[in-house]
């Protein structure tokens, strides 16, 4: 895991580290309420939420919004676009994980302002054989820490709202 406060460094390190955290007190200030709410959410026991999701959508994907599994299928259709994939506002790794499974050989970067969800997604990826292609970046999606022209596909699942 890398803690970086320098965007230039981050650009160099991204493709060699599985975890990157770009943090500042300004981010803490700007998103305070949101961060508190989301951290509470990820500290909840998963068991009962897992049942809720299965009941509602037939699958437990760690959904933290309204992008149902059937909607995610429409995003997965774009995996043919060449180049690395950025899943912005990835929450607990949805739908980034789905994209990773479907996009052989491609690097998938999940980015969110909340560390806890990304940790959950990393745990979900462990031992799948795909974890080497999965990177997590914690930081503000409004100022992306990546070099221009890095990705072939950028996905948002409710992160624009």
């Amino acid at each position: 895991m890398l803690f970086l406060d320098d965007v230039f460094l981050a650009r160099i390190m991204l493709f060699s580290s599985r975890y990157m955290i770009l943090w500042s007190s300004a981010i803490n200030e700007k998103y305070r309420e949101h961060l508190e709410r989301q951290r509470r959410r990820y500290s909840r026991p998963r068991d009962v939420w897992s049942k809720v999701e299965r009941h509602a959508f037939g699958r437990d994907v760690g959904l933290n919004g309204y992008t149902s599994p059937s909607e995610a299928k429409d995003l997965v259709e774009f995996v043919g676009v060449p180049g690395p994939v950025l899943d912005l506002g990835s929450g607990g790794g949805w739908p980034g994980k789905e994209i990773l499974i479907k996009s052989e050989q491609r690097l998938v970067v999940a980015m969110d302002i909340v560390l806890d969800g990304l940790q959950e997604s990393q745990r979900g990826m462990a031992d799948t054989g795909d974890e080497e292609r999965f990177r997590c970046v914690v930081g503000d999606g409004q100022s992306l820490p990546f070099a221009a022209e890095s990705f072939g596909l950028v996905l948002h699942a409710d992160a624009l709202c």
Partner: protein
Amino acid sequence: MGASHTVLKGGGILAGYSIHVRPTLSSRESINARELGPSFVGGLEDPGYLAKTAGFVDTRVMDVTPHFRETCIAWIEAMEFFEEELRAELDQSDYRDELRNKKDMLCGIDKGLLMRSLIVCKKEG
């Protein structure tokens, strides 16, 4: 969206779902829509407009509000079905707030204030 445009390669695609205020609302309706809509991020602007402003081309915006409505209902029904277990696991206010957010969203859809779109657009090149 501007930041996404920068990090995409030429010919790259941005695809995503967005909950937003129905365009053409009066300013009063718009305020009501924002109260009922998601609280996590402030902006609820029309995604087609945002894409164009960010420099994307070949923009397609598909209204997926009917499916969004079904998703809200599925969340609400499942939360009510597991109410006892959820209440046992969560703070009392947590359960109430989660459910209220989802019901507010449904109310915003039914009043024609909120909608959800799938947006797909391309960076030229």
